[in-house]
């Protein structure tokens, strides 16, 4: 309690979890302000889920400390459980039961009496557009429906802190947008959300602060703006009409944008990575480049503006990309 800083929903210091030889979480420090969405961004196996499990009292840390609203996750686990809700990476509802049964079951376990439990379940099913599927077993739900029932189960009693562990992994874009809407609605009511994700885009959409985690360590932390500035503003992809104009176009781009220009395998395509330091937005920079190209007489068939990808973030922050670990493993195996 003594180390607790007011206004923080989560505070960890040097959190460690080892599985045999592997240090899954290797000294994580987090400070999550109350009432915000905090994004934890990282590739598979970075330690995101393990961190969440420790904070939700499912795993005991092997080192360091973690407090949730000032309660120690080990010594005051029960108090922590009373404040948090967990939506795991895989649907954490009972697949053999129907959607309605799941919600009533969990509402009863949260202390609601029979009638209010049924009412609350019905209201949530309605709000989540699941009324028609209420009497179907969850194992027959689509991926999007599972996510919804899963999140509905987490807000049967409005939690003070909601853990969303990769809530949109494996969802189609439409279902993903709907999950985002739900998250925004939950936060708007004052719940703090800890969101783990593999997608920069998702963290960008929802989170106000982001921690980038890799190999069990936080390698960058800050607001979205700070994080993006550290990796560049994105890149411009161009397709020219005439392959012969490419060298000239590359020269124009690197002059106007002060950017690294890469000539793609496709003879008419090239990519310029935009500099982060420029005060202009990526769109402004691209517009400037296009008008300069037009003035020089280079015909552009097609162009697109790419956000920095997670791979680029990783490359910029760690010097290795998200696949590097797998590549090493494959080499060892081969």
């Amino acid at each position, binding site marked *: 309690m003594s180390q607790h800083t007011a206004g923080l929903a989560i505070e960890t210091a040097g959190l460690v979890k080892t599985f045999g030889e592997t240090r899954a979480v290797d000294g994580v420090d987090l400070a999550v302000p109350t009432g915000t969405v905090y994004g934890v961004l990282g590739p598979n196996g970075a330690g995101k889920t393990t961190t969440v499990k420790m904070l939700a009292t499912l795993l005991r840390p092997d080192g360091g400390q973690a407090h949730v609203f000032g309660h120690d996750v080990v010594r005051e686990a029960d108090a922590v459980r009373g404040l948090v809700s967990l939506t795991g990476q895989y649907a954490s*509802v009972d697949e053999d039961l129907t959607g309605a049964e799941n919600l009533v079951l969990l509402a*009863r376990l949260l202390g609601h009496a029979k009638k209010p439990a049924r009412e609350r379940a019905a209201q949530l099913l309605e709000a*989540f557009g699941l009324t028609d599927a209420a009497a179907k077993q969850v194992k027959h739900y689509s991926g999007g429906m599972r996510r919804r029932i899963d999140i509905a189960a987490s807000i049967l009693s*409005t939690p003070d802190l909601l853990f969303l562990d990769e809530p949109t992994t494996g969802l189609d874009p439409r279902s993903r947008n709907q999950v985002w809407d739900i998250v925004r609605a939950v936060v708007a009511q004052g*719940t703090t959300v800890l969101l783990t994700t593999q997608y920069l885009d998702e963290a960008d959409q929802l989170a106000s602060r982001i921690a980038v985690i890799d190999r069990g360590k936080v390698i960058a932390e800050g607001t979205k703006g700070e994080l993006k500035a550290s990796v560049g503003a994105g890149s411009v992809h161009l397709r020219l009409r005439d392959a012969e104009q490419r060298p000239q176009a590359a020269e124009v781009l690197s002059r106007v944008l002060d950017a690294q220009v890469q000539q793609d395998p496709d003879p008419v395509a090239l990519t310029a990575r935009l500099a982060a330091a420029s005060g202009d937005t990526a769109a402004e920079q691209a517009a400037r480049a296009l008008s300069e190209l037009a003035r020089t007489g280079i015909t552009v068939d097609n162009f697109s503006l790419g956000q920095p990808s997670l791979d680029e973030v990783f490359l910029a922050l760690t010097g290795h990309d998200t696949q590097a670990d797998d590549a090493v493993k494959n080499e060892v195996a081969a």
Partner: protein
Amino acid sequence: MSTVTTKETQDLAPVRTDSLAALLVAKERPPRPSAWSASLTFGWRAILKIKHVPEQLFDVTAFPIMMVLMYTYLFGGALAGSPEEYIQFLLPGILVMSVVMITMYTGVSVNTDIEKGVFDRFRSLPIWRPSTMVGYLLGDALRYTIASVVMLTVGMILGYRPDGGFLGVVAGIALLVVFSFAFSWIWTMFGLLLRTEKSVMGVSMMVIFPLTFLSNVFVDPRTMPGWLQAFVNNSPVTHLASAVRGLMAGDWPAAEVAWSLGWAGLFVLVFGPVTMRLYNRK
């Protein structure tokens, strides 16, 4: 498969964030459920699972019927002169044996269930920790009761006549269900301890076969060699079979009932805490 999923997603009603917001407006939380209430809720979960997958009642209906028929006609003529006479002795014993054997499915279902995501949710709830396991066993107690009633019915058809009457029979079944509930904590422990369903099954067989066969269920232990008598006469299954036999015969055998309950208490005291330790670490 993927086309079906896509179609379903498109047919889904939209999320109504306005009514969602209204639902989320911080309400006062209800007080935590009591240990008993949480356990009953988990028991309700077990019953819902039976409702959705009624095939799982096969082991408490078909298996016990098979046991009664098989042993009555297999041993009846040789051991007691006729199956009708033998069943007077056998039925309470075979009842005990079958139900105690059925308890081992608890370990398998705990083992397969615990790997699922829903357990993470249960373990993150502010409830009495053992209630998840107690709920399992309450659901199983219902299964044991069904098995007992099925066997008793078959026995009555074959000519079993309990002298203890309705009360004696109910007391016998009640004792058996209480004992089995307590005994099942061994299986919850193995269910959490062992990694695969198969290994749980294997270990369960190793425990259950000697424990149930090396008892007074089929024959009077006096014909056994001394070293075996020493084991059989002190086995919890022997005490339980004698107690149930006595209760159903209307004898009210206080000592055997006390022994059975004593063993039951010991099982809970030893294997309950071990189960919970494993559950908390899982």
